[in-house]
């Protein structure tokens, strides 16, 4: 294969053997986890070469999860916004309601291949926890999901879904009681039970090989979207929007387009309720490179290197660190990162619901919000939004924020 096509070719060939995307990524963990990470990487590389593994995964993705997902032309939304051609990649239509199932099916197959019968996971919004509980039920594996108590409170529906699926939800009362603390607790479990347990990490984060492996299991999003947009428009989109917590759905949709330099890649972080440290989860504008949970990337921290609390209305984006490949793509200028505030995301969700009949997850609503903001300057452009999840889990939060809808009483006089 030619290696001289240019920078974009090199971009898609990351990471290096040590799991580095440029200076980002790598492995920063207690020594106890190093041999297990090496074992996981070897097992993953072998599985990827095994046609039987890929065939089983493809079958599950098609017949269990519901792939390929549609690429839907959101005409009313585009017209309402003044003329951009907006396409939605409908990951929200997947089984369990979000893209997370792609990675969970892949890692569960891998765990089975490695002889690990106990699965642990962290979850923020609960979507990854539900997807993990789902695949564990499917494969008959023991499942423990760590979840911050604050997230358990705001995502009650998903807590119950996990329990209904047979998983144990372990509440985490440490620190800010959100995703960051859930990951710390999952890592403590893994370091203790590493011989029997696979840690099914849910984002493109953590120590190598996780950022690479999670990305690879989500690459199917971009590969499908690229074919679909070429079928519909006979050309590539001008811009792709995806929300970025750890960044798994974003890296999944971006990757097939890395070599297409004309396609703008836009990651959308949580702008929360203000620019003060602690009020948002916009790592690129408010963070600095550092080490958390196994890798080197942009992380929100104070001047003493203590990890900062974060805020977002969306639990899935409410995390202090961004995945290392995003840090690399940002540094290389291949992808751009912006943020949407809580209020912008909420308004974008309502707009999408009313123009297209689609209630998005609050996470995905951040991607919609960035496209909404761009729309006045985008007449005639083709925009692709990765609609990574659906909004059922967020109904309580929507109710709290749109109280006037609840207060309407009967909408019609009898």
């Amino acid at each position, binding site marked *: 294969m030619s290696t001289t096509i240019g920078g974009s070719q090199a971009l898609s060939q990351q990471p290096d053997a040590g799991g580095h995307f440029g200076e980002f990524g*790598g492995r920063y963990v207690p020594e106890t986890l190093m041999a297990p990470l090496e074992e996981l990487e070897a097992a993953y590389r072998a599985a990827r070469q095994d046609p039987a593994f890929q065939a089983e995964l493809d079958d599950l993705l098609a017949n269990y999860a519901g792939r390929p997902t549609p690429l839907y032309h959101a005409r009313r939304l585009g017209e309402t916004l003044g003329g951009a051609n907006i396409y939605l990649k409908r990951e929200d239509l997947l089984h369990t309601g979000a893209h997370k199932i792609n990675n969970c099916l892949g890692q569960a197959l891998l765990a089975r291949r490695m002889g690990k019968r106990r699965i642990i996971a962290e979850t923020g919004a609960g979507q990854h926890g539900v997807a993990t509980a789902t695949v564990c039920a499917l494969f008959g594996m023991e499942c423990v999901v760590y979840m911050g108590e604050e997230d358990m409170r705001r995502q009650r529906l998903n807590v119950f879904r996990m329990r209904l699926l047979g998983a144990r939800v372990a509440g985490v009362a440490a620190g800010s009681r959100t995703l960051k603390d859930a990951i710390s607790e999952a890592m403590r479990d893994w370091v203790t039970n590493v011989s029997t347990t696979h840690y099914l990490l849910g984002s493109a984060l953590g120590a190598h090989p996780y950022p690479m492996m999670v990305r690879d299991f989500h690459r199917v999003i971009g590969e499908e979207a690229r074919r679909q947009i070429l079928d519909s428009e006979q050309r590539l989109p001008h811009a792709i929007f995806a929300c970025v917590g750890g960044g798994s759905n974003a890296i999944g949709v971006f990757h097939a387009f890395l070599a297409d330099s004309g396609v703008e890649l836009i990651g959308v972080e949580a702008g929360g309720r203000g620019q003060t440290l602690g009020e948002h989860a916009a790592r690129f504008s408010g963070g600095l490179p550092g080490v958390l949970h196994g890798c080197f990337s942009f992380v929100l921290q104070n001047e003493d290197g203590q*990890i900062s609390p974060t805020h977002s209305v969306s639990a899935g984006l409410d995390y202090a660190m961004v995945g290392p490949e995003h840090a690399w793509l940002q540094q290389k200028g291949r992808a751009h990162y912006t943020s949407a505030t809580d209020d912008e995301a909420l308004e974008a969700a309502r707009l999408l619901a009313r123009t297209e009949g689609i209630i998005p997850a609050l996470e995905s609503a951040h991607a919609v919000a960035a496209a909404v903001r761009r729309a006045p300057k985008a007449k005639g452009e083709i925009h692709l939004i990765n609609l990574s999840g659906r909004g059922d889990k967020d109904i309580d939060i929507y109710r709290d924020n749109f109280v006037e809808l609840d207060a309407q009483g009967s909408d019609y006089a009898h």
Partner: protein
Amino acid sequence: MRISAMFERLRGEGRPALIAYITAGDPSPERTPALAAALERGGVDLVELGVPFSDPIADGPVIQSASERALSAGTTLQIVLEVAEQIRRHSDIPLLLFSYLNPVLRYGVEALAHDAVKAGVDGVLLTDLTVEEAGHTVPVLRNAGLDTIFLASPTSTPRRLELVARHSSGFVYLVSRTGVTGERESLSGSLEALVSNMRKATSLPLAAGFGISTPGQAAQVGRMADGVVVGSAFVRIIEQNLTGAGMEAKIESFARGLSTALKGVNV
């Protein structure tokens, strides 16, 4: 070179070293020098000063709480170095900084190397710095005159034990069991094999920690290793005596129980 000299001296005396971990700044930076002095009076041979971190993934609940108390008391890496300097004014006991990597990155590795030596610190152990990622850090710390201590674990392959040995100086820290820090009722069976495998890779002294909390356990480990690390058990004493006097006396008395047990061990 206080660390090597200490192990050399104890080899002559025929007993293993007692190493104590406390989180610096717990319950307050002002208390830490007195606690270190109490440890030394109780017979501790080396003090590990933990730098508190917001997300201590390798630590169990006892040290997590200690980190929270220390951070609430305003402890930063700079303050930990000031604490070390105060300890050094009155004592020659070897001091090891025990930290997660991120506070060190923020402080700057070069700046830390310089300031730690100036404060009288003898070595640095960075829990989540793997040998693979240590290519820049180790030479900077070593050139400043600091020992670099790395962890070896029961899960480490022979190849990894070689790497750990090559990057370590002063001693190698053996994690006696997989898991986080904290007291356990019984010792893990995996330590004996780890000691013997590590001896094949290095002539450095070996100290074992994680889960050792009683004089009996310390003596048992001391028969295999050149040093015994006790952490959470000391931190728990601090936690249980936050109000009122007597914290230092209890720390000293507990340390004496451990050091007495180790004097009965002939190595």
